[in-house]
């Protein structure tokens, strides 16, 4: 399903974090939001997720206006930079959380949930880690758990806020590749935030470059490199 962001603006106190942003993300696309720190990437992603709400503008999933829908109802998976795992739950319970909290009528049987957990553990290459606790895992492993947890309820959209930001280069690259494979395998529509242009270009179908709350250019990596839309883009990707 497509995501449409139409003329979204958001201010914190007096400073505009987003100043009229429009984006149209095609079904199945993998898009990177790229820009320097403070350019509004996180704010835009959180508004798409329903964790923040715009002052003006509209968010559509497909044809549906979801601008006022709460995050819990949007059918998204969200991955945070610092994993945000539930420390008092095992890896398996973390991953199963989205299913465990479903009302009884909608909840799959216990065995089905466990099967789904095993399937997800395999998908993120953490088979056999179900009984561990987050504190017993490395950063890269934790982010894999966070990814599996976000996918448990089969979201249509996967939103990731600097998911590799806290990891070292080698783990970053591994996870990056794994993410792209998972995206293609499941047929998700994904948006991920980064301030690293190499990462954005290596991973995304299209890259949206933000600067001071505006989109400077939204195009495929090759296009951006060949025809940067502004002096800012030229210098930022150099």
């Amino acid at each position, binding site marked *: 399903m497509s995501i449409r962001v139409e003329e979204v603006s958001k201010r914190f106190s007096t400073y505009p974090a987003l100043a009229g942003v429009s984006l149209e993300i095609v079904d199945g696309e993998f898009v990177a939001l790229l820009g320097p720190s403070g350019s509004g990437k996180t704010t835009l992603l959180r508004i798409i*997720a*329903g*964790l923040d709400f715009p002052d003006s503008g509209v968010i559509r999933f497909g044809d549906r206006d979801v601008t006022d829908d*709460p*995050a*819990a*109802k949007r059918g*998204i*998976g*969200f991955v*945070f930079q*610092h994993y*945000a*795992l*539930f*420390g*008092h*739950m095992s890896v398996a319970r973390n991953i199963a*959380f*989205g299913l465990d*909290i*479903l009302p009884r009528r909608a909840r799959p049987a216990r065995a089905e949930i466990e099967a789904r957990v095993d399937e997800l553990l395999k998908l993120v290459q953490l088979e056999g880690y179900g009984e561990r*606790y987050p*504190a017993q895992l490395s950063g890269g492993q934790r982010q894999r758990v*966070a990814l599996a*947890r*976000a996918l*448990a*309820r089969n979201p249509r959209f996967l939103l990731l806020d600097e998911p590799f930001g806290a990891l070292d280069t080698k783990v970053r690259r591994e996870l990056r590749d794994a993410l792209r494979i998972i995206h293609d395998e499941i047929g998700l529509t994904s948006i991920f935030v980064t301030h690293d242009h190499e990462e954005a270009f290596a991973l995304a179908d299209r890259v949206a470059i933000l600067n001071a709350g505006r989109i400077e250019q939204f195009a495929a990596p090759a296009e951006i490199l060949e025809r940067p839309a502004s002096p800012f883009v030229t210098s930022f990707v150099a």
Partner: protein
Amino acid sequence: MTAAALLPRLRRKRSAMPGLGLTLGISLLWLSLIVLLPLSTVFVKSAGIGWDGFWQAAGSERAMAAYRLSFGAAFVAALINLVFGLLVAWVLVRYHFPGRRLLGAVVDLPFALPTAVAGIALTTIYSQNGLVGSVLAPLGLPIAYRPAGIVIALVFVGLPFVVRTVEPVLEQLSKEVEEAAITLGATRRQTFLRIILPAIAPALATGFSLAFARGAGEYGSVIFIAGNMPYRTEIAPLLIITQLEEYDYPGAAAIAVVMLMISFTMLLVLNALQVWQRRRSA
């Protein structure tokens, strides 16, 4: 085994944090001087009367009723503080409103106030002609000179323990963890019960233990409102004072020993529960 054979093993176990031996030594010495030495004299004193004398003093009907009242009221008061202390901590951490700092200072008042002042003030309010007591008494809810009055006094002195232990933990709880639960479809209620509550549970347990222990030993604020009827509203610390006034030092010490043992056992159990809980999630 010779000392030489033992040495390398000790070496290898050396902690990365230096100074363990010294700081541990000072801590033990300090605790011995400040806590254990005075307490041990209680045991010595009570031993002077032998087993039979001990049980006559510490195991009498009147003493039993007093233990039940002191620990029962402390338990109920700590439970009440658990709920309302969490509520107050929540409001202090999560909401920013005018007068927030003032409210924070009010929470600490029970720490600072001489307990007798608190006791007299509470009695004034909850007695039959008092501000609150005059409303409650006609409804068949007399407070002063009943166990209920004791519970209220103990709620008063115990409140800061729960608020001040839970507050910093609540403050550190990451917003992202809650947001993660929400994006996974959790309601506010589910987020609170399944994410926030387990995370603050150890702090709540600590606050509960402190409020409970303080309540069990509390004297000053209770005796004014309690009425002090033997078997009904006489708390164990008061019974100890009564014995002392009758110059029955060993008898008073015997009751104190029983109180100490009960308190210590309960604190130990609560501590063990916490260690177990922490190990599960560490």
